[in-house]
């Protein structure tokens, strides 16, 4: 991912800053600027997520795209955050359905020796 594209979502990637629709009370992470249920009747504001969540399902990835190939095998999971939103993220080590997790700050990928380092949030079991 290019530098501007990565930078645009730093708050989201580093601190799990998402959004919330005050009309229906749904919390969105990854953030949405338009509530799919309320659409133009929605009232969207920013919301910082705690990062605490539970593993919904997971897999161990052996074949990855280029930027992640050197990290395989790694655990990828869908984590349900306590505010209700679900996110796709790596879990450090192994993960089983139902595991409680919390966020940790890790290198997500880089673009070889020369590109920017792309940091973000992974999860670890508590």
């Amino acid at each position, binding site marked *: 991912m290019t530098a501007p594209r990565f930078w645009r979502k730093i708050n989201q990637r*580093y*601190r799990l800053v998402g959004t919330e629709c005050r009309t229906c009370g749904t919390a969105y992470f990854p953030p949405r600027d338009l509530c799919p249920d309320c659409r133009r009747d929605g009232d969207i504001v920013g919301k910082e997520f705690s990062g605490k969540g539970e593993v919904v399902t997971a897999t161990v990835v052996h074949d990855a795209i280029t930027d992640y*190939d050197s990290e395989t095998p790694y655990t990828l999971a869908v984590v349900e955050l306590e505010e209700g939103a679900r996110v796709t993220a790596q879990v450090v080590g192994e993960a089983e359905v139902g595991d409680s997790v919390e966020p*940790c*700050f*890790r*290198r997500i990928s880089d673009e070889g020796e020369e590109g*920017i380092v792309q940091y973000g949030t992974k999860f670890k079991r508590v």
Partner: protein
Amino acid sequence: MAGIVSYGGYVPRYRIRTREIADMWDEDADAMEGGLRVKSKSVPDEDEDTATISVEAARTALENAPVEGDALGAIYVGSESHPYAVKPTATIVGASVGATPLMTAADLEFACKAGTAGVQAALGLVEAGRIDYGMAIGADVSQGAPGDALEYSAAAGGAAFVIGDEGVVAEIEDTTSYTSDTPDFWRREGERYPQHGERFTGKPAYFKHTEGASRALMDRLGTSPEDYDYAVFHQPNGKFPVRVAKSLGFDEEQYETGLLSPEIGNTYSGASPLGLVAVLDEADAGDRVFFASFGSGAGSDAFSFSVKEGIEERRTGLKETFEVVEYIDYAQYAKHKGKIKEE
């Protein structure tokens, strides 16, 4: 009086034993362990680096702090393994704790004392009334060339300190430094691993500067070792800090709490700061802590801390995290440290 308002340390959960490295290079494991007084060292996960360690330490420090990240007016990160040669680690930390944009930031390098130099910088801004709170971090994922003596101890870890003049739990009574141009250990731009002067790193470097700063501080304050409950020194191995403590007049009871290197190795810019974290996790209000870092190149920053009421609310349980560790072998270690890279 200004000082430490809250603190936090982070050490990655992997360990490799000294004898595992010795066996790889056909060295005498007992001799290596005995010579260094280091049994094991910490190893970062493949997706950890100085920035991620700094962020974890910073977040721990803010967890127990009376303020949020956006109260920080300055962030300094000292390391000799910043992820970028140009582009600061301090801004990554700032963005991760919500301190941006109204803050100043910079990265520091002074071998293993870059973090404590950051404490002095933050302290200056706070005491001058320019900022309310500042953060100083010392962190490293230190490198040692395969088969070199440094490989046995070069480890990963870091600690962060929130400095302010309100809600202080460890007052900085005074700080003094002893600095000279001494090339005892260095790494040229573009080189992957550092060079060191072997025995030259001892007397003319570590001992001269640590003793120099420590004696100068105690002279200024009119204190002596008996006035202190704890003493923390830079700990590149398990031997140097013990020797300098004794030569200054401190005893084992005073230095043992803050001596982590036998278990986690030398975390470079994180070393003496992590020792201080371990001490603050134990010290009580009314205790006094003597502290002297050392960085090759060379210099030592000495501090005298006075622990205050409220310290109990800031404790972090650093040593408890050492109970949940995973030992790895040399092959896994090499992969983690990026010594084997897939093309």
